[in-house]
């Protein structure tokens, strides 16, 4: 990494939702701020600003990460994915998104993008995740509205769906 200077901006290049992004940013700029303010992808929400609530969760190289605890410079060369890229195409929801919609896995929806990004990564890595795994995994996400039950139901339904699809494809 080149030497950084607090007084000026530095270039950063990474893949965002499949497209190459180049930006000039202060070295202290957070990934969440870069996404929301510079690039204008506001689907990634900021709830607590310090890694507690999970609302800002994105995927960096396939793994969930708190965008509010990540410096923009840290994603240099990485593959970043946000909620805006979850749907396979604008008219079709991913099975996980569809399950959240169907099972009312949300009320205000503010926590939803972060939760979806976390679960998407979990279900890719562990397609056999059960209720306990999902609950454990979701304990890093705060939701003030739903009481969580419908979120877990939605996740279980999505996991089931995904497993079915995989069997059909096999």
């Amino acid at each position, binding site marked *: 990494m080149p030497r950084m200077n607090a007084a000026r901006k530095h270039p950063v290049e990474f893949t965002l939702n499949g497209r190459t992004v180049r930006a000039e940013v202060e070295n202290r700029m957070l990934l969440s701020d870069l996404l929301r303010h510079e690039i204008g992808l506001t*689907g990634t929400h900021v709830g607590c*600003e310090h890694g507690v609530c999970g609302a800002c969760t994105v995927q960096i190289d396939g793994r969930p990460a708190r965008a509010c605890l990540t410096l923009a410079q840290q994603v240099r060369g990485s593959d970043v994915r946000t*909620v805006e890229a979850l749907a396979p195409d604008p008219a079709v929801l991913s099975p996980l998104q569809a399950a959240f919609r169907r099972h*009312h896995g949300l*009320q*205000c929806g503010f926590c939803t993008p972060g939760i979806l990004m976390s679960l998407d990564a979990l279900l890719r890595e562990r397609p056999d995740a059960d209720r306990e795994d999902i609950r454990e995994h979701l304990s890093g996400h705060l939701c003030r509205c739903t009481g969580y039950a419908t979120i877990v139901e939605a996740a279980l339904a999505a996991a089931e769906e995904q497993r079915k699809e995989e069997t059909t494809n096999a």
Partner: protein
Amino acid sequence: MNVSSIGKPLTRVDGRAKVTGTARYAADFNQPGQLYAVIVSATVGLGRVTEIASTEVERMPGVVAVITHRNAQKLPYLPHKGVIDPAVGERLHVLQDDQVHFYGQPVAIVVADNLDHAERAAAALRITYAARRPLVDHADRTIERIAPKSADGSRGDADVAVTQAPVMIDEAYEIARENHNPMEPHATTAAWSGDRLTLWSKSQYLVNEQAEIAAVFGLPVENVEVICPFIGGAFGTSLRTWPHVTLAALAARQTGRTVKLVLSRKQMFFTTGHRPRTLQRIALGATPDGKLTGVIHEGTGETSRYEQFTEALTAATAYLYSCPNVRTQYRLAQLDTSTPNHMRGPGEASGIFALESAMDELSYKLGIDPIELRRRNEPRRDEAENKPFSSRSLMQCYELGSERFGWARRTPEPRSMRDGRLLIGLGAATATYPAYHAPASARVRLLADGLAEVEAAASDMGPGTYTSMTQVAAEFLGLPPEQVRFRLGQSAYPQTPSHGGSWTMASVGSAIRAACVEAQAQAASRAVADSGSPVFEASVDDLEWSEGRLRRRGDASPGMSYRDIIARTGTPVEAEGSAQRDPEVAEGYSMHSFGAVFAEVAIDPDVGTIRVRRIVGAYGIGRVVNPLLARSQCTGGMIGGIGMALMERTVLDPRDGRPVNAHMADYLMPVNLDVPKLEAYFVDEVDPHVNPLGVKGLGEIALVGTAPAIANAVFHATGRRVRSLPIHIEDVLTA
């Protein structure tokens, strides 16, 4: 209208926007060339600002303005009292003088070309104060208690009755200050165009925000527009228009640029309201067979020095149970803090904790089952107001809830139930909340393509207003919900009351119904006047609507759809409707929702950890518009109650009033693993009086009752009566 939409589990119409990240919340609106503002909050609890070193900060990179009381425009602050504002006192006037009334009060605002520059400059701004020690401890008895207007109520002589009662209890209760802490922070983007102002702002009460900001800046109301299509949870915190909204508009006006201002999580603990810390006393007198002879409920809430915030802390005690002698008293302690605000289940959630804890305690003293005790004191009418209830299903709620919860397996003795080494406790409590209704209006437009557009300046903080109002319009127009587009979140739409107090469906729903009925009438008269229509010159009484089609009564022909009617003239039908409660009905009935909440806890006797294992709530809330939404509302309210019972507490540093846990790591809220099995049931309840829809509201009552049910379960498990919330491990450990 035989296509029934009300009562159906319609999937959320806003679901797609929320799972794709396209729903735009207040902080998601950006305007080209906007500046970013950051508030600098006072770091003393009382005193005045003596010095502000703004010159250097003004020279920092990107800084456009540092606005303090020294250079802020003097704002007119014309009188404005919204329904939601405290009746006594005056809102904080920001940056108009050097006074600091509470810790965290905005004392400067820094505006810069980007957020980073604004944050750095705000952090660098040095401010000197002449500080005094604030009074922030409500329990300090030297603080004068003031009596707000009509705060007290009495029937019979409760003091004598309690003293002379064969069985009595007299106890004190305390509930900590809580902050709403919705996941979404407050945010406002302000854009001026001449003397017109547009605000993209988090608000549960758009038309009040519009009127208030117009008053603050001395503008005609119609010059201000407030836009808020989505709210990321609020629970009351966005009912009032807080200082940051004025600050965003002020900064935009002073810099001549659009300004975006987002509060930090920490700042959400300073100036956006909180559930006031309360101190209460309940005294109950009863006969040995459990008939209440006297009830005393005294309560004090905290408020600021500049406003008297009141809530219905003791109100439910007057009508909840049958008793000839009842006295309630409500006082305020004015502290050097910011003004509290309604938080989910305001007043009732706190007051009912005290009353229902006391009722539970009384049941043990009498050796009567807690539910049986309530049954013996079930009133036939509202004894405080001396009028009938429009509907009251409390006992049905207890029956349904007991059965679903399995109350029968409970052995009455404390510490008598175990699961291995864990102590198990089962508790129950009553919930209640008024069925409010406020005047509201709505507009319906029937379009040539067969769609119906419906508009109201309402909000959806999460419960599903978009969806439920779509159902109401679909029901009364006789259309499938897919053909209805409901819009909210703009102050320019027809006026509605605040999105709080569980009155949105009652008020806005009734207005939409009225607008739909009016739209149908207009469509019908258009058809009748049209010589080419099959109902030409029919008398209106001869016509009927069915599934969105108009025919003569008894006619088997397909009739005319809205689309047919509109196609013949080409112009859409547009109708407005409004609704409010008939004053005679309001006069004649006592209108409240009721519920019974059951909790099961498991407590480790060695380390005192308290786990809630299960909560069951049964509610009588009139008609349920959408069972999916309703259940979700209830489970959300229940976790709010778990938070209140076991976790939530905003702690103030006694030296300067600083909220010491003003962030999400230390302000504890239930996470997924804290949340047990939650079940909500609704008794069939038909209330012909409350409003034309027969709905009584749900959002608030969903939180009420949970905390006392848990506290009562904790007593059943341990034999320890904990009268202060949140309950701590130490409370059940100390002998």
